[in-house]
């Protein structure tokens, strides 16, 4: 299933691999989280990034159709925009964007051969919504 979703604009430096965006019975093409694995060895950074070898970044993609499903946890504005779009297609639909992100930790060797452990915020998409 991972191979069916291409990363599109968010796929630079990574490739689809494993993981699950969830979704289950949700209609295909609806705003959802999709797998995106960033493999540090693919970009030749595994010589200075000690751990992890890569990480699941995920990305958000999909339609925000009328009416917006409750699980998409949309804003009032997104609901109005989608409503207007349903009668006037000149107004675009709401956008599928990440709202919940989490951090990753990197253990790496810096430019001076010192070992550094660092947390980076907002590196992993945890949830997508229509906004």
């Amino acid at each position, binding site marked *: 299933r991972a191979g069916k979703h291409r990363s599109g604009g968010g796929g*630079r*430096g990574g490739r689809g691999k494993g993981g699950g965006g*969830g979704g289950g019975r949700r209609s295909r093409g609806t705003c959802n989280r999709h797998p995106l694995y960033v493999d540090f060895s*693919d*970009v*030749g*950074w595994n*010589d*200075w990034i*000690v*751990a*992890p070898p890569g990480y699941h970044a995920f990305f958000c993609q999909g339609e925000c159709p009328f009416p917006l499903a409750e699980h998409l946890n949309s804003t009032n504005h997104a609901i109005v925009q989608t409503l207007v779009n349903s009668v006037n297609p000149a107004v675009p639909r709401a956008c599928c964007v990440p709202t919940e992100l*989490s*951090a990753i*930790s*990197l*253990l*790496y*060797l*810096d*430019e*001076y*051969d*010192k*070992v*550094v*452990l*660092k*947390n*980076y*915020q*907002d590196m992993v998409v*945890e949830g997508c919504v229509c906004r």
Partner: protein
Amino acid sequence: RGDIGLVPRDVAGLRLARRGDPALPSRADDVQLADSLRILERRLLDLFGLQRRPRPSPNAVVPEYMWELYRGVRRVPADRSHGSSGLSVPRGLFSNTARSFHHEELLEVVPPTSSSYPGRRYVFNMSSIPEREVISAAELRLYRARSSPDHQRRQKQQRINVYEVMRPGAAPDGVSVARLLDTRLVWTNESGWEAFDVSPTVLRWTAATAHNHGILVEVLQGNDELTPWRDESHNVRLSRSLHDYESATWAQQRPLLVTFGHDGRKDATHVDRSEEDGRTRSKR
């Protein structure tokens, strides 16, 4: 890879495959792609807070303690290749950055063989810490190996004193004036790491309000007798032993200075938050 950095393998391979095939991108396209990837690499390095791509030496050693911190933050179970050293993540210390430093062995002042003075001075080069980084704590970690069975029968206590060197001098340990930072009484029949708080000193060094003359460590017998350097009961790993055939052992047991802090960027995280994220992920 190598000179081209972020350029992936298939891009490098494209140059070879392009020979005589007009369907493949031209050299101009190839160069443009490579330029784009270099810009991408630069932006990624900037995101990671690095000015240039690190080129680690083959001799670089990752201390077990840093692995332990990494696993603690990520809640990754210890694997066989990096067995647990029994250390725990110091709660409240780790904001979003931890750095480890080994002392500069070339600058180490080794007392003469005949000297019975138990002190040893270490100099840590901490110039790699960016100016904007805010250090919240620092600790010096010393490893104590269990005494040999003969010595275990005569269980003893040792006192380990850690000083900041205020002024270097001509004494056997190269120290003229020193200020006590931390002290601990330990049993010689126990193994493990001891962490000493050296935060005030490192804070002053990184704030450039004090010269870095190093740290002095001395080991005394429980009754405050001076411990001779060549005494076999000397179990605190303060220096590379002549009998230490495995340099890898020394690399993992040598004194280690660790700083904890925040890199000065927005969105500081806390170890508790990371652990919470880890729970959320595992539930899903």
